C-alpha cells in the first residue's frame, strides 16, 4: 500500500483519484479532444477531469500557453519557479514535485529550488528569485496583497511588463491547478517492488 509523501520533494510521486475517472471505453470524440494529448487518457487526473470536457480543454490550452509560450517575457524556468512557490504556499505536494523538477531542469539551479521546498518561500534566494517569489507569494494570498512595489522591484531587476504579466499568469494559474489537484485526489509515494 502506497503512503502519502512526508513533505515537499522533487522526487516523482504518483496521484490517486478520490472519484472514478472516465474509462477509455466511455470516451467520445469530445473527450478525446478535451485531453489535447491523447496519451493523457492513461493519466487518472486527466481522465477524471475529462468528465467535464469543455472545461478541461479550455483549461489545458490556457495552461500550455501560460507555461510554454516563450515568445519573450519571463523565461520558462521562472514561470516554473512561480508555480513551485505557489504550490509550496498552498500545500500541493504533488504540483510542487512536478514543477520543482521543471524549475531545476530549466534553470540548472536544483539546490536553490530544493531550498525553496525545504525552507519555504522565505528561504534565502538571489535578488531576482527573491523578487519573483515575493511577488508570487503576495498574489497567492486571499485577498491578494500584490502591490505596485512588487512591479517596481521586478522592473528594477530588468524585467519588462510582459515578463511581469507572465509572472501574474503563472502565479494565478497555480491557484487553479493546486486547488483542483488537492480536492479530487491525493499524492502517493511511488510503490516500490517489495
Amino acid at each position, binding site marked *: 500500500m502506497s503512503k502519502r509523501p512526508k513533505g515537499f520533494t522533487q522526487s516523482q510521486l504518483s496521484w490517486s483519484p478520490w472519484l472514478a475517472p472516465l474509462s477509455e471505453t466511455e470516451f467520445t470524440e469530445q473527450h478525446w479532444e478535451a485531453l489535447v494529448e491523447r496519451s493523457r487518457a492513461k493519466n487518472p487526473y486527466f481522465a477524471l477531469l475529462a468528465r467535464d470536457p469543455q472545461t478541461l480543454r479550455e483549461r489545458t490550452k490556457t495552461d500550455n500557453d501560460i507555461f510554454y509560450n516563450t515568445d519573450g517575457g519571463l523565461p520558462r524556468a521562472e514561470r516554473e519557479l512561480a508555480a513551485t512557490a505557489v504550490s509550496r504556499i498552498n500545500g500541493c505536494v504533488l504540483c510542487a514535485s512536478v514543477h520543482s523538477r521543471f524549475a531545476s531542469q530549466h534553470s540548472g539551479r536544483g539546490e536553490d529550488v530544493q531550498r525553496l521546498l525545504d525552507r519555504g518561500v522565505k528561504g534565502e534566494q538571489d535578488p531576482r528569485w527573491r523578487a519573483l517569489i515575493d511577488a508570487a507569494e503576495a498574489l497567492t494570498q486571499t485577498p491578494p496583497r500584490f502591490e505596485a512595489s512588487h512591479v517596481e522591484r521586478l522592473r528594477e531587476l530588468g524585467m519588462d511588463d510582459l515578463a511581469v504579466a507572465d509572472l501574474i499568469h503563472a502565479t494565478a494559474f497555480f*491557484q487553479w491547478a493546486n486547488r483542483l489537484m488537492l480536492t479530487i485526489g491525493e499524492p502517493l509515494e511511488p510503490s516500490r517492488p517489495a
Partner: protein
Amino acid sequence: MSDVIDILTGVDEGSPVDRLRRRRPVTREHAQGSWEALFQPQVLGTVPLKDRYALALFVTGVSGDKAASGFYRAGLLREGGGHWAALIDQAIEAGTTRGPYGRYDTQESLAAESVEGLHFRVAETLRPRLGERLSAALDQAHLLVFRPRESSQAALKTLTDAGWSVTDVVTLSQLVAFLTFQLRVIAGLRILKEATR
C-alpha cells in the same frame, strides 16, 4: 472585443494592459474560453447556471473582490437566483477571512507549518433555504479557497452525499478553482494597469 477579465480589471481597448494581453492571444482566448465553459457551457449537465453564479458570488465575495462579486451577483439575478442573493450575502459575511491557512495532517514533516483558521459551514438557519446541495457546495468552496491543503476524501464525499453526481463534482471543483485563478489575474493586472499609466 473585451472579455470578462477586461471587464473585471477595467481594461480599455488599446490601453497598455490591453496591448500586453494581446501579446498572449492564446492565453487571452482560453482564459475567456474557460469562463465560458463554466458559465456558458455547451452542455449544461446537472449543475444549473443559478447554482454556478451563487457559488461564484460566494467565492468572490469571501475573497473580498467587489468588482467580481458584483459581476457574479448580476449573473445570479439574471438566472433567477434573486431569492438566494441576500442569503449568500449572510454566508459571505460569516465566511470572509484571510488565507491560505490550514493544518498539514498527512505530511508529518510539515506539521510545524500548520496554521489554524476558520472552518466555515453555512449556518443551519440558512441551509434549508439554500438547499443542502448548494450549502454543501459553499462549504466545500470555502475549504478550497482558504485551506486547500486540508482537502480530504471525507470533505469531497459531502458533495456526493448532498446529491451531486461525480461529473457535477468535477465541474464544481473546476469552477471554484478557476475563480481563484481569475481573481489573481484581475488583481495582478489592476496593479500593472496603475503602474503603466
